[in-house]
């Protein structure tokens, strides 16, 4: 009981509305990022996922400027950028990275302008920190239904393309010969990725959302042998890291009175811990110090 009290769980944690909103939105984001992140890492599109998350920041900044729901801003920009990247249909890894880099640069440049306008025209002083690094305890409750609907849409889309996407990941030619509509599958995945990074950007911020998208999936892929077990493990890691991060951030108000630590920091740290543990398990299993490198990390 003492331990629970120490984490503030008995001190209004569950009855606190910002906490409940953070748990709901963060949980949805963690679940979607785990599922979409897994296919993103397997398809070696970690850099594209990171770029989309950063670019979505421009949408979030625009939303503050226009005074609309920031989730719609993140979502609109991420979906637009995903559409452009998919429309270009670049297969060669080098060309794809170059295009992703160009889109990323353009998005960040736009975000810089919009954040400047947020501060100078709208006088929204905390917009930059909120957009780039997240502020889960300030998410308005009105966002919860929209966020959960976005999460549900991304999960349904991912379930729909689960098998065709796996075959495409093995080989595009193999998939085409089998009758997979490779273009449609890739487009649906790109849109699911846009939904995932938008939710992730809402919770941990545009800059750190890559951690929620890639981290749990990468950790799960170190140890899981089957797609289903990788999905379950990635979802568990994402949820534990997100909800654990919220609990720790809530508790941090008692560490430095009146000044809580950022939720994003705790979430990212917990994900890194999970990755290190998973890597340790993989090495122990392999019985050698050098386990095979993870696919999705090779792009960086």
């Amino acid at each position, binding site marked *: 009981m003492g331990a629970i009290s120490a984490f503030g769980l008995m001190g209004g944690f569950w009855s606190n509305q910002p906490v409940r909103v953070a748990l709901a939105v963060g949980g949805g984001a963690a679940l979607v990022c785990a599922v979409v992140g897994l296919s993103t890492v*397997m398809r070696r599109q970690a850099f594209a996922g990171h770029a989309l998350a950063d670019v979505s920041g421009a949408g979030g900044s625009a939303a503050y400027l226009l005074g609309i729901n920031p989730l719609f801003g993140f979502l609109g920009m991420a979906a637009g950028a995903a559409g452009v990247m998919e429309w270009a249909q670049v297969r060669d890894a080098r060309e794809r990275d170059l295009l992703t880099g160009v889109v990323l640069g353009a998005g960040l440049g736009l975000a810089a302008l919009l954040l400047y306008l947020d501060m100078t025209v709208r006088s929204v002083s905390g917009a930059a920190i909120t957009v780039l690094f997240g502020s889960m305890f300030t998410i308005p409750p009105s966002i919860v239904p929209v966020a959960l609907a976005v999460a549900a849409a991304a999960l349904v889309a991912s*379930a*729909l*393309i*689960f*098998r*065709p996407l*796996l*075959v495409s*990941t*093995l*080989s595009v*030619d*193999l*998939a*085409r*010969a*089998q*009758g*997979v509509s490779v273009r449609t599958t890739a487009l649906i995945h790109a849109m699911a990725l846009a939904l995932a990074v938008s939710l992730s950007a809402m919770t941990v911020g545009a800059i750190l959302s890559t951690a929620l998208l890639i981290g749990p999936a990468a950790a*799960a*892929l170190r140890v*899981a*042998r*089957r*797609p289903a*077990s*990788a999905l379950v493990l990635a979802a568990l890691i994402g949820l534990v890291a997100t909800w654990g991060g919220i609990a720790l951030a809530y508790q941090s108000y008692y560490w430095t009175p009146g000044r809580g630590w950022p939720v994003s920091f705790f979430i990212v740290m917990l994900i890194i811990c999970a990755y290190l543990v998973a890597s340790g398990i993989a090495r122990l299993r392999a019985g050698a110090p050098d386990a*095979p*490198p*993870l*696919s*999705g990390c090779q792009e960086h």
Partner: protein
Amino acid sequence: MNTGEAVLALERVAVTLGERPVLREVSFRLEAEQFCALIGTNGSGKTTLLRAILGFIRVQSGRVDRAAGAVGYVPQKITLDPGLPLRARDVVALGLDGARFGTRLPSKARTARVQQMLRAVGAEEFAEQRVGALSGGQQQRVLLAHALVRRPKLLLLDEPLANLDVGSTAEIVALLRRLSHEFGAAVLLSAHDMNPLLPAVDRIVYLANGCAVSGKADEVVRTEVLSRLYGYHVDVLRVHGRVVVVAGARDESREALERDPVHTITVP
């Protein structure tokens, strides 16, 4: 004289990639259970021909007729990532219903069919291992099972023997020969070295200069036939049971070939 029903028939097929004509006029046919090698040097158009048969690239002229039903395909140079959480068993199962949208319910019939295919290609002992961690020969067996699990009438394999050691090459060739009969599938297998295949194949399609000559191996792999195909003199030498095609000097027969609109030679 071909008497059986054609599973695959190509008639005067021409394919241009960009500005470069890769295939100028290729004709041949393949019947059920025939095991056929598609032979040619690197860049002769073997992969292009297979991709044209699959419908991946447009044929400029001519016809490609395939029997209705699934086509099994093993592409060239698949690099299976060791980090993929896919067991050999999962890859074979994806061959069965990987193109379908949505999720599936577990099925005993599906599991039994996958198991039967793993057994057929001799992959049972590594069925639970991550496919990316398997050796080249083992991966070829898994990809073969993936291609065959829907029981296609036609199986296309693009350089499946590349990068395999001598032992694995002989095993895969023998396996393909057996499976061709067992599953009643016609097999068209591309390779740049015909020697490992000669004892096993029913027919050969030899590609050069964008043209093809097809027929039984001992009828196709002859000095006069291949010289006409290449457009200049080549020698077909037999050394210690191996066939070696040696290029000679280019002569006027090349120009004669280019003037001649009929490029395909079919040896009955």
